[in-house]
């Protein structure tokens, strides 16, 4: 089940409507108006911003871990391929 995320702003905010209604017919967005919440700074200094649901936090953590693993693997791959392509020449350079 898809949990709908909402930007929860604990302060004054302007709520408008996105009029781009050219989505696919029969699709999940058909006929719905998209709410756009624009946060404004609070005078009392309370924290304002996007509040993620627990499910969104789990998804974000999983994505971050996946990106970290892929980047790490690429570093190792490029390092190893560099050694393979240079061969013994990697140690043979003028000082």
């Amino acid at each position: 089940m898809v949990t709908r995320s909402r930007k929860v702003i604990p302060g004054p905010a302007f709520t408008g409507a996105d009029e781009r209604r050219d989505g696919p017919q029969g699709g999940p967005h058909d006929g719905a108006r998209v709410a756009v919440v624009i946060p404004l700074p609070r005078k009392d200094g309370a924290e304002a911003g996007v509040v993620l649901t627990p499910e969104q936090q789990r998804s974000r953590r999983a994505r971050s871990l996946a990106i970290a693993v892929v980047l790490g693997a690429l570093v190792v791959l490029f390092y190893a391929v560099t050694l393979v392509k240079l061969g013994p020449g990697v140690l043979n350079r003028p000082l």
Partner: protein
Amino acid sequence: MSDLGIGHSIPRGGLSAGHAEELAEGLATPGDYLALMKPRVMSLVVFTAVVGLVRAPGDLHPLLAFTALLCIATGAGAAGALNMWWDADIDAVMDRTRRRPIPAGRVSAGEARAFGLLLAAFSVVTLGLLVNLVAGALLAFTIAFYVGVYTMWLKRVTPQNIVVGGLAGALPPLVAWAAAAGTVSLEPMLMVAIIFFWTPPHFWSLALFRTDDYARAGVPMLPVVAGPDQTRLLILLYTLFLVPLAFSPAVLGFAGPAYGAVALACGAVMVRLAWEVFRQRQGVAAVTAAKRLFGFSILYLFALFATLLGEALAPQVAEALPW
């Protein structure tokens, strides 16, 4: 543009980035991004690329061979993601595809486009720089052909979409061969030709029992436009051309007797199943015949390429054995 007029009020490019984001922003998992890469298609691409890599002359370092396969797989995934971005409107109305990440609202169209473009650039540049420029250029052509020619142009315009577009799915063994040999020759071209002529009977047999799905989405697949009987005839004709073509590597000396035997035996089954599809035109028997041909066509291509792989590896395995 197609003259079918179905679904043409839908903007090309699928959903605009802002729509899906508002529904399920931040819920995409790594699995959703993997799904964007069409892993089942990717596995077939990698398998045929391995065969091209192993059979090619030259002595490519195993790490560079792995890098080449990684780039080819990533390039295929990039093409899949860009295809899902462009076809999100079609996917949303087809039973087979409506649970994909974009129509399900887990990934926005803009995210899928960025993901696909990033992977495409990475795979082409990496293959070109780390392996060789010929392979990199061929991979770039393959991705551009699949996305630009098949997905963006032919798919919605002509019932010959999968015939011409099938070239993109057929090219991976050629890319892999170029990665190992630095050039191309007749043998990998034959591999490309086999996959190219295998594609129409494979996809049209699927389209025969998914006709309503394609019609609802406005995709002019052959059964939708020309009718099931014309499709059955063309399936049979393409199969009759494919089977001797698939046998030709044995005749031309590119493959051994094992390949010849497999190509003959499996080819005979393909012709029989295609004949059944042509003969059975009504009711459950017609659907069953189409499903059997679709299922066996996958096994047929796998058997051909697995035998090519086995014949190439057998001498090396025998040499490595201690007795």
